[in-house]
């Protein structure tokens, strides 16, 4: 071995430490299984017949022919689950587009312009950053009542589209957009809006990926606000619909049907995450670690 080898290099060539490496991976694998087991259990349960759900830990290996799609069929026939799925997709997508657009526009202005009222605006945003939104739940509900927005998608999408966190995130990241590039764009006759879209947004693309997923997740999983706003079953999103099913006597011990619903509620976000995961984890932690 080269003389500059460090202590740990020498250590890893000893047989005892290879055993240690194996043990480390064994521990990690067991822990990873522990984290993934609830997903597996949910997925298995959604294909099991009613009496098999609790009888077998995961799958009834001796009777794999008993696996069924019946739970999914029940889910779409006994309750308007298809409708809930579409509602969830619609509300979450519109919300995400809106919040990402507004935050990136506003963040761009905060990062790259001087304008009247910028300092007080940022101070006010900063002061409210840690304010738990729950304190506004009753007064926001009252406001929605005044607007006639109870039981409407507008109430789910528009009030939440203000994200102080998102504004700060975009401001921080867009500080790195080179001024020379903006300057060159202006000389070439780009409007400010074009500069935002063609210069600023592409520069922060990885962060946009992360923030988009984060916003979509928040809307998709949101429960308390839709729960107080929505009244008609046909307007429910998936979490509201599923939580409501838990209380209905006809689904008392229909665990397979409930897990089929949970599977369909979890699968879209899990897929999205696996596609975007690299950007997502890097974007999630970049602010916290550097700042």
């Amino acid at each position: 071995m080269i003389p500059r080898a460090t202590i740990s290099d020498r250590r890893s060539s000893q047989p005892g430490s290879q055993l240690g490496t194996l043990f480390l991976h064994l521990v990690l694998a067991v822990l990873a299984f522990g984290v993934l087991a609830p997903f597996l259990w949910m997925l298995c349960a959604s294909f099991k017949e009613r009496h098999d759900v609790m009888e077998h830990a995961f799958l009834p290996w001796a009777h794999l022919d008993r696996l069924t799609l019946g739970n999914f069929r029940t889910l779409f026939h006994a309750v308007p689950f298809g409708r809930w799925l579409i509602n969830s997709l619609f509300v979450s997508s519109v919300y995400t587009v809106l919040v990402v657009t507004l935050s990136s526009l506003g963040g761009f202005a905060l990062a790259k312009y001087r304008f009247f009222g910028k300092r007080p605006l940022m101070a006010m945003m900063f002061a409210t950053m840690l304010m738990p939104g729950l304190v506004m739940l009753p007064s926001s509900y009252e406001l929605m009542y005044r607007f006639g927005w109870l039981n409407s998608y507008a109430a789910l999408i528009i009030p939440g589209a203000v994200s102080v966190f998102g504004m700060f995130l975009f401001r921080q990241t867009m500080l790195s957009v080179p001024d020379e590039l903006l300057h060159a764009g202006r000389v070439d006759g780009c409007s400010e809006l074009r500069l935002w879209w063609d210069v600023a947004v592409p520069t922060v693309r990885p962060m946009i990926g992360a923030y988009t997923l984060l916003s979509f997740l928040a809307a998709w999983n949101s429960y308390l606000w839709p729960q107080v706003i929505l009244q008609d079953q046909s307007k429910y999103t998936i979490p509201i619909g599923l939580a409501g099913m838990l209380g209905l006597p006809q689904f008392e011990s229909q665990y397979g049907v409930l897990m089929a619903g949970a599977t369909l509620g979890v699968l879209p976000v899990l897929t999205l995450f696996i596609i975007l995961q690299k950007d997502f984890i890097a974007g999630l932690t970049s602010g916290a670690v550097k700042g």
Partner: protein
Amino acid sequence: MNRNSEHDIADRSGAASGSAARSRASLLWAAQYRFAPYAFVFPFVALFGLFFLYPLLRSVPLSLQTTSGPGLMRYVGTSHYRFLLTDWLFWLAVANTLVYAIGFLLLQVPLSLGLALLLNSPRVRFRNAFRLAFFSSNLIGQVFVAMIFSLLLAPRYGLVNRAFGWLLPNGVETNWRGDPRYAMPALVLATLWLTVGYGMVYFLAALQAVDQELYEASQVDGAGAWSQFWHITLPGIRPVGVFLILVGTIAALSLFELPFVFFQGAGPRFAGFTIVEYLYAQGFEAGDLGMAAAVGWVLVALILIVALVQIKVSGAGRDTA
């Protein structure tokens, strides 16, 4: 830089003095530059004022009123706050929530750190795959988590009790949802599944950002692994630790969906009843939005006190380190 751009724009309008139409165009050009930042922040400011600042301010007078639904209101002064001070159910909810928050933070932070240290070992292969697996549970909404865990924690055949049965000779018969003593442990368990991967991702990023030269230098000085951890690693990841504790405290004190769905209500003898469940019950089941707003402000005060204590303690710790 901005000054520079203004110069360009002045130049452009100066050069364009040839015809009236062209000078009008350059005036428009200057105007769009001048007003662009206002146009960019306007949608945010409008929505922020209407849907954030207004409800925030409005909830102060609202907490001094009693309402039956949003339509009918009557001024009652501070009587909501005085009622809360004497209501045993509210104090039970506060105690439950605090027990949950303490249990959760005491376990989540060390577990996340431990997992991050394991994953940060240079000997680990497939690090990204492991990180992906550990983080994946964090994507799941609390409603889905509550549904899955209410079955995983089912008395005899639930996966958790089964797993204990494989590990322990006599197994366990823990009735997680029915026994008041296990209400909070069950919630903490579900929350740990939800959040340990999240904490791990932050700690791992912090660990990888620690300057490697510090370790090499201390190795030359003959520092042991423990002393390296204490003097280099821990100070390096401290800011992330403080951040996780702060975020975790706010989230834990605001706990609602998990117990609400898991117990389908308050739990056995109100053992799963939290502050926000109390708020929900007052405002949206009993219909008194004013009382709910008062509960909201008590929650804000509680979060503020706890957060200030934490910031003070962690700040004081840094001075002596």
